[in-house]
């Protein structure tokens, strides 16, 4: 142990002889290690972000949505009935997909959504009018800023009341308290009973679910919506006309018992039952789709694994390049110090001693580089937020970028996993050994006589 310390000490002495050269050589490893850690951290951060988005849907939920069937298939059914296109989830589905029919379901939360102009006095705003039940607020992590949510009692009374999102309140009631005032939707008046807090939009997840902006919502009791607005949604625009009849847009099923059992063991089988029930009830008509966040989560994790692997490999290449730099310098050093090698051999050093000496030098070089890289890697979140700051400064002035990308970039927080620090350091030392062996061997194999004569 003492011997090793001394060898390291001697190695440091030799390296300090050429400070600039040693530090430049080290730089290759510093950046290599740093990029491995940073890449893995960013990958991990992106993975967390993606998983969080899925989790926002509720990891243990199952979401059944209405889907507009393809035109050809729909034209026959549509023509047989009327020009109104009927599709989507039915209230009957809600009854089937309930805790009475399928065990494991704790709650079924239906919604119906329509895009409609909402008026208050002379002000008007296009909102997403959501007919929902009391469970909706909880499943979507909506919090109240003021007033109250829609309750079961409102459903029974078929009350014309509404809860508005923060942005709607600000647009329609600037400088006024909306509570108790009435807004007009489709000619009916709804009294505002509550205001929700601002909630960040959810990003789109793959192709299965589009992003959701909760800030232009207005919530009314589902029953009220059914009674006051009916199921038909007719939109007239210049020269075009579309009419469709949808009973429900989405049913979110909450699964119970996930605390004591492994969630995926519970959710996946229930999702199969839901799928079968829906298929039977809709007689094979594909006007619905099922989203299982748990499955998406698994997919996201798998994709992330590949993503991390690719990022890590790219970074690892830079580490290898750093290693080649070290080898190059060590080979030059061996040539330069041929005489010293000859002297040491003459004074009794065995080949092994020479190998040890140069190998330790290389390992010290890569080890110190690795340690600095590790430190930088550990600071990845800080460095990354610096990058974000710079990006914001530049992008806000020059380029128009997709808002979704901006959001994603702004929300991304690199997550440095402690094991990546160890791994990257280990690899850097390993690279020191691998790329140090050849120069060390070539140093040891020198003929002492030749080496002594070397100028």
């Amino acid at each position, binding site marked *: 142990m003492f011997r090793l310390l001394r060898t390291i000490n001697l190695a440091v*002495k030799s390296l*300090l*002889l050429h400070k600039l050269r040693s530090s430049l050589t080290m730089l290759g490893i510093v950046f290599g290690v740093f990029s491995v850690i940073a890449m893995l951290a960013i990958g991990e951060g992106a993975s967390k972000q993606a998983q969080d988005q899925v989790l926002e849907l509720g990891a243990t939920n199952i979401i059944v949505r209405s889907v507009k069937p393809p035109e050809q298939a729909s034209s026959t059914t549509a023509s047989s009935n009327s020009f109104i296109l009927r599709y989507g989830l039915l209230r009957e589905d809600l009854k089937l997909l309930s805790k009475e029919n399928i065990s494991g379901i704790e709650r079924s939360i239906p919604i119906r959504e329509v895009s409609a102009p909402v008026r208050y006095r002379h002000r008007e705003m296009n909102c997403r009018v959501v007919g929902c039940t009391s469970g909706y607020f909880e499943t979507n992590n909506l919090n109240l800023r003021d007033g109250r949510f829609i309750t079961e009692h409102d459903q029974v009374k078929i009350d014309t009341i509404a809860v508005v999102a923060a942005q709607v309140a600000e647009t329609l009631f600037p400088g006024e308290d909306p509570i108790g005032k009435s807004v007009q939707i489709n000619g009916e008046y709804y009294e505002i009973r509550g205001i929700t807090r601002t909630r960040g939009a959810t990003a789109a997840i793959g192709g299965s679910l589009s992003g959701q902006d909760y800030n232009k919502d207005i919530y009314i009791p589902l029953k009220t919506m059914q009674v006051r607005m009916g199921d038909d949604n007719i939109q007239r625009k210049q020269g075009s006309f579309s009419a469709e009849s949808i009973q429900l847009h989405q049913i979110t099923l909450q699964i119970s018992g996930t605390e004591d059992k492994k969630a995926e063991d519970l959710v996946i089988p229930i999702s199969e039952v839901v799928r079968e029930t829906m298929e039977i009830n809709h007689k094979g008509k594909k006007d619905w789709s099922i989203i299982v966040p748990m499955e998406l989560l698994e997919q996201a994790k798998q994709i992330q694994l590949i993503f991390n692997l690719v990022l890590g490999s790219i970074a690892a290449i830079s580490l290898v390049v750093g290693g080649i730099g070290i080898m190059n310098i060590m080979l030059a050093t061996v040539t330069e110090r041929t005489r010293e090698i*000859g002297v*040491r051999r*003459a*004074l009794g*050093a065995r080949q092994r001693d020479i190998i040890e000496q140069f190998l330790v030098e290389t390992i010290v070089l890569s080890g110190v580089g690795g340690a600095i890289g590790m430190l930088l890697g550990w600071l990845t979140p800080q460095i990354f937020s610096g990058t974000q700051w710079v990006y914001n400064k530049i992008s806000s002035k020059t380029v128009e970028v997709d808002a979704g990308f901006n959001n994603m970039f702004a929300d991304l927080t690199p997550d440095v996993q402690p094991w990546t620090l160890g791994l990257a350091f280990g690899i850097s030392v390993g690279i020191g050994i691998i790329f140090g062996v050849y120069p060390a061997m070539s140093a040891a194999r020198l003929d002492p*006589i030749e080496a002594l004569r070397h100028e």
Partner: protein
Amino acid sequence: MTQAVETQFAARVIELHKHYYLGEIVVHALRGVNLDFPKGDFVAIMGSSGSGKSTLLNLLGALDRPTGGQYILGGFDVSKMTDNDLSDIRNRLIGFIFQSYNLIPQYTVLENIEVPLHYRDSRQPIDSEDRDRCEHLAKLVGLDGRFDHKPFQLSGGQQQRVAIARALVNNPEIILADEPTGNLDSKTEEEIMQILLDLNAEGRTIIMVTHEDNVAKLAKRQIHMKDGQVAGDGLFRG
């Protein structure tokens, strides 16, 4: 390594041959050299370039193996040893002094003197006793007060003194000096030769290669090499 046999000779060379193969051509660098070096001898090996004196020195220094013949050093037959054993022999029995000093540039005076101790058989770490010995040797060759200097801070003569101290640190059987004063001015040359003479007076065996007559005549014995053979061997003092 076989057990050493006690002899009155520090080193003996018996019918030593050395051939080099330069492609197709065989160079006979040594053609049967016989030499005895009694303990306490001070020998100057002389000869023009190509006479084989460098080859002889390499063999005496256990840096190379002879093609034929025997080399007995301190009772060991060195002629057929493995590379590792040769390393150990060099470390234990030979002290090298080179024309161009060959100090390790990044080490201080004391560290340079310590170098052979790193490679001793036991690979024992250097302790305070070793350090005392190094300091003692440094003082002996007149380097008092320069223990922490680096080679580039020293004059040629001082560097050669470091090299001499380094050659003595393992208490070797023979000291091999390859033109020890070749790079020095005449005054420094005298000082260095005086150190070697003092060491010889203490009973150390010194084998020195030189082509300067005034240096050679300080030795007890001069050996002239020619065409790979000993052309003359004798006492030419003064």
